[in-house]
């Protein structure tokens, strides 16, 4: 085996936490002249088992049977973990607990808009959620009351087409499209003027759907509507609109949600390892996931052995933390359903910032709803341990530069890029450079990436490679079995330059992979 040079890739995928071969492997990885195109050998690929449910990026997100598949993925665990939510009456109080908490920060939703005005129509992306009885649940712009007749029409269209044993998908007009997603007992509708494909918009609606599930569980949602078909779900969701608002913003701006991947805080691997092992040491009986975040960057994630977190669930956690300021005020304790793990049960999350005024946020996810004090203790143990180490200083230092400039790569015409390692589910991307610093420009470049993504991942006509020369920028996307790469060049860049840039960039990422990725994830 050792002599079989060509088979080097094999043991990596099966390597199971045994430390011995890692050093050698690391050597091999650096030596490989062109970074491996094979899954598991690309830059950023984890050396041990991966952190996330192995997701074929977004295909599994929009697949019809995704609910069942997600359940299958965690089925063995589901019975043991994840508190069953069908406790009927008992399920609801826990819900209200949560609502109360959310109500403390209603956010600044300027919803009072004239829904017949030109300004309302000009919004780039509308999202509506309604019940099967046609009752409004959520609208991104304008109040649900003002839009109740519009939503009534939406439901009428959905049921009219269903009466013919058919399913409505989308309506297309010049400059915008309307996409319908039927996820019983909810109906979601998106109206977008963006360049996004129908499937891409449908993916975003799935996110919104799972956001709502994460607050209620599907079991409870079904239970409610089975009892009372025209129930006004806003009563339960009141105060949580800002979560959906924020998630929609993330969908427009955060590449991670597009790529089905997470980005890490750049950190030397020795520092990260110390943090991970400190977190690993601070375990508790019912603790399933410990996640340390720095803003929207992952610092480290420690999980119970054999339990995997789906990137979508992680994004929902990110969104929960990112859209509420209350966690800054003290330790938060909230039930949350991680729908890709199990749509039926609640986890309980202990959420707190490590210190006042820092961006470091610790999320501890437990299966036990009475676990607050245990987890609070975990946090203190972790913090104590960490403070004694110099790594904590290094982490504080790293927080000052949560991102990096594209100029570090040394390709002048390269403006921005996204690189995703498929096997680890992690991606890296520099900060947006000068031409893309305004919100509008950021959303525009994200739209271009979304366009490339939807062409490359076309359900029946997928592509290996795409290169587009436009007047404002040149774009390139390349997908192999190991990675996905999206590049944005200045319009002056040539094709020859683009080709050489790919190699240069991949070499740079390989060189920096210790810092940019989590190569050795930990388990309890």
């Amino acid at each position, binding site marked *: 085996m050792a002599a079989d040079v060509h088979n080097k890739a094999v043991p990596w995928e099966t390597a199971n936490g045994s430390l011995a071969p890692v050093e050698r492997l690391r050597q091999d990885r650096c030596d490989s002249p062109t970074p491996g195109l094979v899954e598991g050998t690309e830059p950023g690929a984890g050396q041990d088992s991966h952190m996330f449910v192995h997701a074929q990026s977004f295909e599994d997100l929009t697949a019809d049977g995704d609910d069942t598949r997600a359940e299958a993925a965690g089925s063995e665990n589901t019975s043991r973990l994840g508190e069953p939510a069908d406790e009927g009456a008992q399920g609801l109080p826990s819900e209200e607990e949560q609502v109360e908490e959310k109500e403390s920060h209603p956010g600044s939703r300027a919803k009072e808009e004239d829904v017949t005005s030109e300004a309302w*129509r000009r919004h780039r992306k*509308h999202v509506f959620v309604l019940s099967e009885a046609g009752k409004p649940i959520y609208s991104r712009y304008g109040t649900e009351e003002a839009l109740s007749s*519009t939503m009534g*029409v*939406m439901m*009428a*269209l959905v049921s*009219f*087409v269903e009466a013919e044993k*058919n*399913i*409505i*998908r*989308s*309506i*297309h*007009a*010049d*400059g*915008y499209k*309307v996409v319908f997603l039927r996820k019983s007992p909810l109906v979601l509708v998106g*109206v977008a003027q963006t*360049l996004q494909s*129908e499937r891409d918009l449908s993916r975003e609606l799935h996110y919104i759907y799972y956001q709502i599930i994460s607050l209620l569980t599907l079991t409870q949602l079904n239970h409610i509507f089975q009892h009372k078909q025209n129930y006004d779900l806003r009563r339960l969701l009141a105060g949580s609109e800002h979560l959906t608002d924020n998630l929609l913003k993330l969908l427009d701006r955060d590449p991670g949600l597009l790529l089905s991947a997470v980005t890490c805080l750049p950190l030397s691997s020795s520092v990260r390892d110390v943090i991970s092992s400190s977190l690993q040491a601070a375990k508790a009986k019912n603790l399933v996931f410990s996640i340390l975040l720095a803003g929207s960057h992952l610092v480290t994630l420690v999980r119970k052995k054999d339990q995997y977190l789906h990137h979508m669930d992680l994004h929902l956690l990110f969104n929960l933390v990112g859209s509420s300021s209350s966690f800054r005020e003290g330790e938060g304790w909230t039930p949350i359903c991680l729908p890709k793990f199990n749509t039926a049960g609640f986890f309980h999350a202990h959420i707190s910032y490590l210190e006042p005024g820092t961006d470091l946020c610790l999320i501890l996810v437990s299966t036990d709803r009475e676990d607050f004090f245990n987890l609070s203790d975990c946090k203190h143990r972790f913090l104590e341990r960490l403070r004694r180490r110099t790594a904590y200083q290094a982490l504080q230092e790293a927080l000052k530069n949560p991102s990096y400039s594209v100029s570090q790569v040394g390709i002048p015409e390269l403006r921005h890029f996204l690189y995703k390692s498929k096997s680890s589910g992690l991606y890296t991307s520099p900060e947006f450079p000068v031409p893309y610093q305004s919100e509008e420009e950021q959303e525009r470049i994200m739209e271009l990436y979304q*366009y490339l993504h939807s*062409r490359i991942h*076309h*359900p*029946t*006509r*997928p*592509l*290996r*490679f*795409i*290169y*587009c*020369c*436009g*007047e404002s920028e040149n774009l390139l996307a390349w997908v192999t079995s190991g990675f996905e790469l999206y590049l944005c060049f200045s319009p002056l860049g040539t*094709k*020859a330059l*683009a*080709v050489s840039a790919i190699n240069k960039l991949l070499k740079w990422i390989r060189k920096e992979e210790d810092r940019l990725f989590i190569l050795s994830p930990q388990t309890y």
Partner: protein
Amino acid sequence: MISPRMATGMQEKQYTPSLLNFFIYNPKFGPREGEEEKKILFYHPSDVEKNEKIRNVGLCEAIVQFTRTFCPSKPAKSLHTQKNRQFFFEPEENFWIVMVVRNPMVEKPNKEGKPPTIEYQEEEILDTVYGAVLQQCYSMYKLFNGTFARAMEAGGVELLTQKLEKFFYRYLQTLHLQSCDLLDVFGGISFFPLDKMTYLKIQSFVNRVEESLSLIKYTAFLYNDQLIWSGLEQDDMRILYKYLTTSLFPRHSEPELAGRDSPLRPEVAGNLLHYGRFLTGPSNLKDPEAKFRFPKIFVNTDDSYEELHLIVYKAMSAAVCFMISASEELGREFCEQLDGLVGPQLTLLASDICEQYNINRRVSGPDKEPQFKFIYFNHMNLAEKSTIHMRKTASVSLTSVHPDLMKILGDIHADFVRVDEDEEIIVKAMTDYWVVGKKSDQRELYVILNQKNANLIEVNEEVKRLCATQCIVTRHLNGYTQTLYLALIVSLLWNAII
């Protein structure tokens, strides 16, 4: 106990996209409840139950109305559902044409007793392509019937429904939805490449005929199903060209291919001087029973609204369309005059062109299988050229590449439409074919390269080389406009001499 024979019986069945419904309605015609049927002006298939017709029209109205919430001036153009796609088109105010196309599907047999599972392929139909097909339906109707509004003025709903019934009953049978592609979107015209001398000969021929037969308002000249000269507006010529090349010419090509003594061949006795004959109107001038009725067409419907007789006259591979105001009575005398004047000249001209064409072909050398195939379209003069399509016949257009590649071309075109700037898109398909789309200066070029191991730079070089040769085409077209100018001078001189 499954024998191999039975196993083959269990195979999947693939169904191509097909026309489910085609209807035309005007929401203003039955505004009150209970009167909905009055909105419907045409419905295919006609044997659909009344309530279902009303329901389907109602859905379209609702969809259009619903989208006006988001953009009052740009209502829905298509509706995607699991089983089908519907295309909406409002060619004249409040008149809506709707085409419902069933998605292609695969029927997978199940174990005994169970009905087969049907899987709809929802991503296979391209909106741009079928949207264009729908618009073409209207343009073709308008070419032969004029606008809906004019029919309403002339004879009310009754006349309009009659006209619609008569036209679409036949026309819809000629729609071949499974073989529509990017060329339908362009609806372009293929021009016949020609040297200047021959071009001038044709030009002066057209002038001489128009001079002698002053009734003629417009003339169009084609050779080998490709256009050489047209006096019509571009948009009118585009749809007339479509009619000639996909309907009229194919219908008449068979007797020509038949031998001289074949009964299929029309009587040419006593006409030894030339090979000219009418494709519309009288099939045999010598026949005392001959009818002198020509199809009517409507052009310039936006302003002068002209109704014209369409005379198509052909000698060997050369075909000429003469268009004469419909108010003129055309009888035996006129036709004989035209036959006597045009027949011999056109026969000569046709053999001239043929000779010239063969010389040019010899110069450029025999065609060897190239490494690439391409489609070129120029929005300014509607010129199109495709080396992907074999000859288009009435029933099918044969392409020489995989349908998925054709759809990728369509996808790239759709990307070009969204952004109003010059762009280039290069993609590598899963089958390792390279596809390049280039849009610049109102021109679009699509290339499929069969060099699987090539890299981006090599592909770029290959396309550059191709563009250089395509430049000859472009230059030829520039030469064409130059020739037009020369031709104008020549014709002025000619008129002066006479």
